[in-house]
């Protein structure tokens, strides 16, 4: 239920960011961010299902082969949950690097599959897309920090 709400929230922010600026929508991947956060908070299975659902939405709203973003996001969601169970990624800086690496992985898998299927160079979109992992990590770790603080306050 929470994963479905997160997928809808990601779709909402994708639409809002496009309305504000197409560069913002390109620079910050809200779908990957939502997938990683759900993976971190709810575990690998929720992350994988969230990645599956978000990937399908991304693929339906883009030209190209249907399923590429799905593979990249499913893998990212699963790894986010699995690795966070094995390694402590709660401290802010570690969390920032962790989300950055996963967002970079998602982008690399998507680019690799696109290049493999279309047999051509990957789309860099004026280099903005290269900012994606960093921006996603920054926003993601700040959000994660906020969620943890709210949870801690509730527990008190």
């Amino acid at each position, binding site marked *: 239920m929470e994963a479905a709400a997160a997928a809808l929230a990601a779709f*909402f922010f994708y639409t*809002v960011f496009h309305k504000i600026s197409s560069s913002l929508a*390109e620079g910050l991947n809200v779908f990957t961010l939502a997938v990683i956060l759900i993976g971190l908070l709810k575990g690998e299975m929720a992350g994988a299902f969230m990645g599956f659902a978000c990937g399908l939405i991304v693929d339906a709203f883009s030209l190209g082969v249907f399923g*590429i973003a799905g593979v990249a996001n499913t893998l990212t969601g699963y790894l986010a949950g699995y690795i966070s169970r094995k390694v402590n990624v709660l401290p802010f800086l570690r969390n920032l690097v962790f989300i950055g690496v996963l967002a970079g992985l998602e982008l690399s898998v998507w680019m690799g599959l696109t290049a493999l299927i279309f047999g051509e*160079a990957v789309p860099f979109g004026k280099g903005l897309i290269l900012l994606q992992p960093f921006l996603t990590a920054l926003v993601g770790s700040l959000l994660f920090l906020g969620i943890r603080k709210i949870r801690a306050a509730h527990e008190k």
Partner: protein
Amino acid sequence: MPDIRKARRKQFVFAGLLLAQLILISLQVPLGEEPSYFEKGIFFVFSPIQKGLQALLQRIGSTWTRYIYLRNVERQNQEMRDELFLLRQENIQLRNGLEKSRQKEDIGRILTDLRRSFLFASVIGADASDMYKSITIDKGSRDGLSSGMAVVDSRGRLVGRTVNPVSPGAATVQLLTDDNSGVSVYSGDHRVVGVLTGDGKSGKCWLKYVPATNVDLAEGDELITSGFDKVYPSGLKAGRVISITSDSTLFKKIAVRPYLDFGHLDFVAVLTQRLDTLF
């Protein structure tokens, strides 16, 4: 023991999800541009949500500009009055010109058809993976749209064409900056014909198949659709040549800056019938 079983079950489910996506990819590849029913279904479900959200954002934005931020309204009104005056004069001159070669009834019919040929639409979303590939608009098959219709911006300059998926209330538009798009164009000054295709990376385009021996085309030349491709009507402005280089190949390498402006792409018009068939 139950932990191992649980972990294994998770791995199976994960592998199943990946396999399902790979099956979707392999089903899609042979279809090419044609989306699968599954993709159409997701587009059908989510595009009304996007349309509703966009309408809400539009309403919030227009409340600000209509009732609070009125700083430039007077100047804009004056500019629009001036433009309207000039357009009316131009319209009278064109009607007079047309009346010399056509019957009055013919002209009335042509102008009515012309008005019906444009369908105005709001842009409700950009491509979720690559902003230079496509946009989503808020008009669909219910409004008479189908795939393969030319789309222009508010100044009548080429934006792209409608492609599948087209749902009852929304449609996808392939932009001319997409690397899979191809538009037959000619240079307005020298009538050099080529195919305009997007580079898919930076919002630029390439003019392809202009022989290396050609000396007529120059930087700054305007490119206009020729209509030879039977998709885009002739006479739509597409972009301007920004650089021409030659290497050892048979064709020149010509970079083009399209008129398509991503910063001001809120509204577009779909040409529901070919304008060149009206006259």
